[in-house]
């Protein structure tokens, strides 16, 4: 009897650690033959943005001199990102603050919402991160060319190298530059995907060990403790990945601001 109920539980919860990433259509849309349906991923993105706007809106609505708890959290978030932007790009980098802050908050909220059971993690799909990374690269290239003109392309031709070596150095620099959006998006995607799969598999062990019966049942609490530890780790990773994405955005934007140093 108990075995049966546990088995059905396993079937519901742990049989497929990938299932949590499946996209489902909420509303069907087609524009010019392209499928632009509103999916659960899009819904969670909207949810994250709306939640961020509401929370930050409430936190900053009073503007009290002695901040309330919510206001201090918002101020800390602002100070954290502003400090990062100033450290990386200097005072003139503050014109990119809205971009960096929006990216940081968007990714942070998406990651944190993903930590709720049954929630969908938008950042676990590489296409979402790729769009964000390409946005950053578009700003870097666009602003770099607008500000520095043709000199921006000195990125690919470092000065002080013997002319023959340009045959080697230029392709390497091009690859190094082109690999940035990929490394930005792959890192975030891989960490969120791997983390959530690991979480599910670990949690699955608990049910599987209980169902296995006999001496193996003793091991179930160990797996449970492991799951709890992994949850804590995932919260850290959720924050760290948003932080890494934001800080690398600053590093790359710094190129557009001050090319060639």
């Amino acid at each position, binding site marked *: 009897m108990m075995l049966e109920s546990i088995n059905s539980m396993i079937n519901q919860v742990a049989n497929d650690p990938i299932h949590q990433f499946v996209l489902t259509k909420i509303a069907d849309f087609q524009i010019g033959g392209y499928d632009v349906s509103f999916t659960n991923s899009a819904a969670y993105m909207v949810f994250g943005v709306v939640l961020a706007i509401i929370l930050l809106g409430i936190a900053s609505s009073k503007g009290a001199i002695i901040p309330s708890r919510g206001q201090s959290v918002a101020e800390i978030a602002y100070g954290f990102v502003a400090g990062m932007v100033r*450290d*990386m790009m200097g005072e003139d980098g503050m014109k990119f603050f809205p971009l960096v802050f929006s990216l940081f908050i968007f990714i942070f909220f998406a990651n944190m919402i993903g930590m709720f059971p049954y929630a969908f993690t938008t950042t676990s799909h590489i296409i979402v991160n790729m769009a964000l990374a390409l946005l950053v690269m578009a700003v870097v290239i666009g602003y770099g060319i607008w500000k520095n003109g043709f000199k921006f392309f000195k*990125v690919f031709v*470092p*000065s*002080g*190298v013997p002319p023959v070596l340009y045959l*080697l*150095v230029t*392709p*390497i*620099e*091009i*690859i*190094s*530059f*082109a*690999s*940035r959006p*990929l*490394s930005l998006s*792959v*890192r975030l995607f*891989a*960490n969120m995907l791997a983390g959530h799969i690991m979480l599910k598999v670990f949690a699955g062990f608990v049910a599987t060990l209980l169902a296995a019966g006999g001496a193996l049942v003793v091991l179930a609490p160990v797996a449970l403790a492991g799951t709890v530890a992994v949850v804590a780790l995932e919260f*850290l990773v959720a924050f*760290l*990945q948003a*932080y*890494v994405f934001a*800080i*690398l955005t600053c*590093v*790359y934007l*710094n*190129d557009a601001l001050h*090319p*060639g*140093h």
Partner: protein
Amino acid sequence: MSNDDLKKQIEEARAAYTKTYERPLKQEGQAKGMALGFRLATEFVVGPLVGAAIGWGLDLVFQTKPWMMIIWLMFGFAAGVLNVLRAVKGLQDSTGNGPVEGAEEE
């Protein structure tokens, strides 16, 4: 107030200061370290990937299968190593734009 009392008070204030200010600093350092770790893990891998992709594309365009891919894969390895070196040099000047080592004079 005797000298000893004052000394004791200073010690206590110092301990309180360290407790409140140095722990967060250390935690921040750890977060930065982990962030760098996450960076390094992907920074190298993407070099060869992008190199191979560029080479593959050039092969398609110029009908030179498989030579471009082989050559650009090697460039990709070099770019991966360069990415890692720049990341290690410090988050600030790890921009892909930084001049290659020893080429600072303009």
